């Protein structure tokens, strides 16, 4: 059984999204959370490229992918800088410990 390129990429998209989601479900380390978000975003980028290819609107898919790349770079930068600040102030990077910020 041979797989077409489209189905291979589709499996990759699902795989990336699943890994990212699973990681967000189980990790508690803030830097790992940022990494998980990055994996999710990469899955989404690939998904948009694939959708553009399937619909024949490659340009639209690419422009959306570019938008996500920018957004997720910003997420990474701000997330990591927050991580530095949080480590500085609270001495931990455990996200569950951050619930203390409530109230």
């Amino acid at each position, binding site marked *: 059984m041979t797989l077409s390129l489209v189905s291979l990429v589709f499996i990759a998209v699902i795989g990336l999204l699943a890994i990212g*989601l699973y990681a*967000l*479900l*189980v990790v*508690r380390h803030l830097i790992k*959370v940022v990494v998980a978000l990055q994996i999710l975003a990469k899955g989404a980028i690939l998904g948009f490229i694939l959708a553009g290819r399937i619909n024949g609107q490659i340009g639209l898919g690419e422009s959306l992918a570019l938008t996500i790349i920018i957004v997720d770079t910003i997420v990474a930068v701000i997330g990591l800088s927050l991580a530095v600040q949080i480590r500085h102030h609270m001495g931990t990077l455990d*996200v*569950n410990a*951050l*619930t203390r*910020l*409530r109230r």
Partner: protein
Amino acid sequence: MANFLILLILGLPWLGALLVWWVSDKRSKAQTVLAVLFSVLAGAASLMLIPFASESVALNIPLGGAFGDFTFVADGLGVYLAVIATIIGSLAVIFSVDYMRGEAQLGRYYALVLFFIGGMAGLVLTSNLLLMFVFWEITALCSYALISFHSDDPKAVYGGIKALIVTQFGGIGLLAGALLIYSYSDNYDLQAFIANPQILPPSVLAVAAFGFLVAAAAKSAQFPFQTWLPDAMEAPTPISALIHAATMVNAGVYLLARFYPAFENVPGWREAVVVVGVVTALMAALMALVSNDLKRVLAYSTVSQLGYMVYAIGAGGVFASQFHLMSHSVFKALLFLAAGAVIHSVGTRDMRQMGGLGVQMPLVRTVFAIGALALAGIPILNGFWSKELILEAGYTHGPLWAWIVMVVCAGLTALYTFRCFWLVFAGKPRSSLNGHDAGTAMKVALIPLAVGAFLTELLAGPFAHLMKSTVPSIEIEAETTLLVLGEVVTTPLTLVVLAVVALGLAAWWWREKLAGLSSALAEVGRAAADSFGFEVVNRGIVIGTNWLAEKLRHTQTGLLNWNILGIAAGFLLVLIILVIGG
């Protein structure tokens, strides 16, 4: 040319807002000059737009097809309301020069006022439903921010938040209606919808119609949402004038008038509009009668007069309602600004402490008297003509019981207006308050409005003509000033209404002889002073929401993993529904 002017009407106030914001609060003189300049220029631009009024799209901003094009149409209805918003708005700004002198954070004040004026002008000129919703919310946001301008005063903050929350119900109604229309007609163009409302199935059309009625009622402080407007009186007085006369509350009546042709055949809709208008007008008039706060009396009178306009739309008199809107804008702005001059000078709003101020402030007394006579509907002032027009439309097309109640309300209006004037300006001083007459900028704002209260009825003809030629969906019979005014003069109904108004005035004159009657009506007065229990309902809703929020707090764990689980579960649920639903 028209597209350029529309850009100016929207752009000038907003550009002014940015500039005022950018100039620091240390240079408050420059801020004031900028605010006055830009608001007056916007007013001039809207006046210049009148000759270019037409029903075709004047300005089109394509948006790639995602939300329909952002279109603006300068038809008669839109242009007139834009003129009212910008002209009355600029007069309120001019008045603020004296009223707000020396206050802190003038930049925030003027920037928001200009943003408010631009937002209202956009709301009446756009023909894209989605954009209309955006402008609608801009006016709500600005009113909230300006009502609680004195953010260190808890009452002002309370009034602002209340206005925001209550008007949000209206926002939901408008959004729901707009989305329903979009889902069936596939575009947000409201002209296309009004021309062909049958696109929607009757049941959906009815939902949209009542959604818009809720929106209008919340915005125009109609029953059962009337409670926010009196509490909004904590705002600086020029803001009250702006909200009551130029921007904000007019939007609701405008919405009803705009969509009347689409909804008039929805079963029960017109009756509902009439009931909302009549109940509001009566209740607010009674509350105005027992209030002792000068600004609250005026606020209740606004609610009551808006009730007249809503009633007129329900009875089919769209032109009469918009005409009264124009008259009301002029005389209510006059009354509020005159009241502002009084409050600014004596430092209290309690009418029981005033009295005899007419001697100290002759100019303010004169202009307030003109505004009060117009509000009471005394002949030759603009309020008389437009109110008679509404009552005539109501008598010929609406139910008789509603007409009778509205005529009684006209008498009550005369009574509370006269009481208010008497308590403030006439009689002997009841405390050692020292008044001084209005300053120069105040006079510049007050005198044109006082002249306008005598003259705006002459605009009836041009207004009717413009409406007839550019808003074909609204039926208008008379087209010249003489015909419109002649209609009022020749009908015997006018005499009936005038007699009731005279009765209202006489009731105040002989108030001591009528002591028996007033004590018999004391229960009604007490209920009116308690705003007929609506405040209790409001408080109950707030307490209930707080209780529910406290109960639901436990679902907010703040733990990332749980939140992700919730998102994933929700996503799965949506997928399953989509799969099952096909």
